């Protein structure tokens, strides 16, 4: 906001109101800092406890800070295999979602038809159904078709739950690519799908990145779906294994739980920063919310 804000400050330098707002007011700062402190406290515990080998529930500076907790959880069974499972699950979900969303968004953004609006609103309606309520019937369905504990089936289910939002976002990003560029390719004899692959997709790769990362972050953080559908420890992602760890050792090893939580959270924090820096979070959000 800096450049436009500066420009408008110059333009309105004669007006008090604008000047006062740009300079920032101390009461607003104080209230904001107070709210921010309330939001920070639970996060602060996570960080301090992870550095404290004798951590409990209370918020305190470690008597002697160290990385023992991180060393203790950095073992193949405890952390690395669950993280690998999370990566497969989230990467698979994001890949399936993006492919299905791109294919669906192409006709929806390129052809005019009575079919488009009802379809898009039906899809949007799908996002409104509470996924936690659907998990009980999904479990029943997975039992009947013997899909329980199957990684691919879980990936397809998770992709479906994020698909409606992804279709909306992808369609909006695709609408931003002018049709005239494709028309040139058609004249040269390229098929629609070739034009989509060679012209449209490269031009909207930033948007596709946003969709991929959004789906990935959601899948990475999802606890309930793998908790219900993936039963064997060897397939469970970090979200579920951290919960079992909490049940088995949580009462004694809070420091390790915090260290585990931080290592598991880092990838999504990093990805979120990429999206927020690159595309602007409110921009990506408005693509998801307003359509």
């Amino acid at each position, binding site marked *: 906001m800096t450049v436009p804000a500066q420009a408008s400050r110059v333009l309105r330098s004669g007006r008090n109101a604008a000047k006062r707002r740009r300079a920032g007011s101390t009461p607003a700062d104080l209230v904001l800092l107070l709210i921010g402190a309330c939001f920070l406290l639970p996060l602060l515990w996570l960080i301090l406890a992870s550095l404290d080998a004798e951590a409990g*529930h209370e918020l305190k500076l470690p008597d002697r800070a160290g990385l023992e907790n991180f060393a203790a959880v950095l073992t193949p069974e405890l952390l690395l295999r669950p993280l690998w499972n999370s990566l497969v699950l989230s990467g698979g979900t994001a890949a399936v979602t993006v492919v299905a969303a791109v294919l669906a968004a192409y006709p929806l953004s390129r052809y005019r038809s009575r079919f488009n609006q009802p379809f898009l609103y039906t899809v949007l309606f799908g996002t409104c159904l509470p996924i936690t309520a659907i998990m009980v019937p999904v479990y029943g369905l997975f039992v009947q078709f013997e899909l329980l504990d199957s990684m691919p089936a879980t990936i397809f289910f998770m992709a479906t739950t994020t698909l409606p939002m992804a279709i909306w976002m992808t369609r909006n990003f695709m609408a931003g690519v002018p049709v005239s560029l494709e028309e040139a390719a058609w004249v040269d004899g390229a098929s629609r799908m070739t034009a989509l692959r060679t012209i449209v997709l490269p031009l909207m790769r930033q948007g596709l990145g946003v969709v991929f990362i959004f789906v990935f972050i959601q899948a990475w*953080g999802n606890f309930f779906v793998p908790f219900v559908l993936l039963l064997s420890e060897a397939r469970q992602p970090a979200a579920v294994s951290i919960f079992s760890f909490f049940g088995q050792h949580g009462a004694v090893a809070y420091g390790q739980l915090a260290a585990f939580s931080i290592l598991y959270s880092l990838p999504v924090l990093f990805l979120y920063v990429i999206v927020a820096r690159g595309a602007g979070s409110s921009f990506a959000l408005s693509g998801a919310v307003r359509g």
Partner: protein
Amino acid sequence: MQPPVTARQLLRYLPVLPAVLLLLVFLAGPVLWAFQASLTDAGLTGRSARNPSWVGLENYQRLFADPVFPLSVLLTVVFVAGSAVVGQNLLGLALAVLMRRARPAVSAAVGTTVVAAWVLPEIVAAFAAYAYFSGDGTLNQLLGRLGLARQDWLYAFPMMAVMLANVWRGTAFSMLVYRAALNEVPAEVSEAAQVDGAHGWQRFAFITLPMIRGSIATNLMLITLQTLAVFTLVWVMTAGGPANASTTLPVLAYLEAFKFGDIGYGTAVASVLILIGAVFGLVYIRLLRETRP
């Protein structure tokens, strides 16, 4: 030879097929299956798991006779109204307004903190909230410092604790929506009102709020739907307890189906929740169609 127009049109929509198949198999399928299974005695294990028999509306009759169900509906309404409609919504709006008045560095730092709680994986957020509200957690430390009585929040006031945790976890969404909405309100309109002598709160109530009412409606619907489906936060913090004191509908559906092994009864609870979500979803889509030309 050119195929007939209708066939060609259908062919053009062929790429939509994978998405449609996924949505039918993994979303519409389970929803329809839920309504059907809620009319059976399907169990988690044993004979009723392989070969459930038809029991008609028995599960629903049980549901409405069960004292836990109305309690659970009430708790869900309190949870959604308190933590989403009031908590996240108003706090998000307040944050967005304050951030426009504060120094950029302050608003950036606070914004990052609020968003961090939202971006964290839900299970991690739930652990952090659990530690914060637990007996010797940060909240009691603070109260102790201020000379106030400590409480065992998760046992004495479980709903209060999960609602505050949900405000902490979800306010970032409302804040981002309102920041984007406020940025689109032209400054001239507000300035014109100022020239006419309107005070700060008057300008906000009579000019800014009506101008962002579309965003308010959208935000309210979305956070209602999100909060309706919250499971992990409640499950980790209280597991619905003590004695069902924080058993919202998603937790009740899970407990009945997986803890007590009664899939038929659990799906009846889930079906009610799906119906509530569907009603809100239809309202939301109506709103969206009205605001978009």
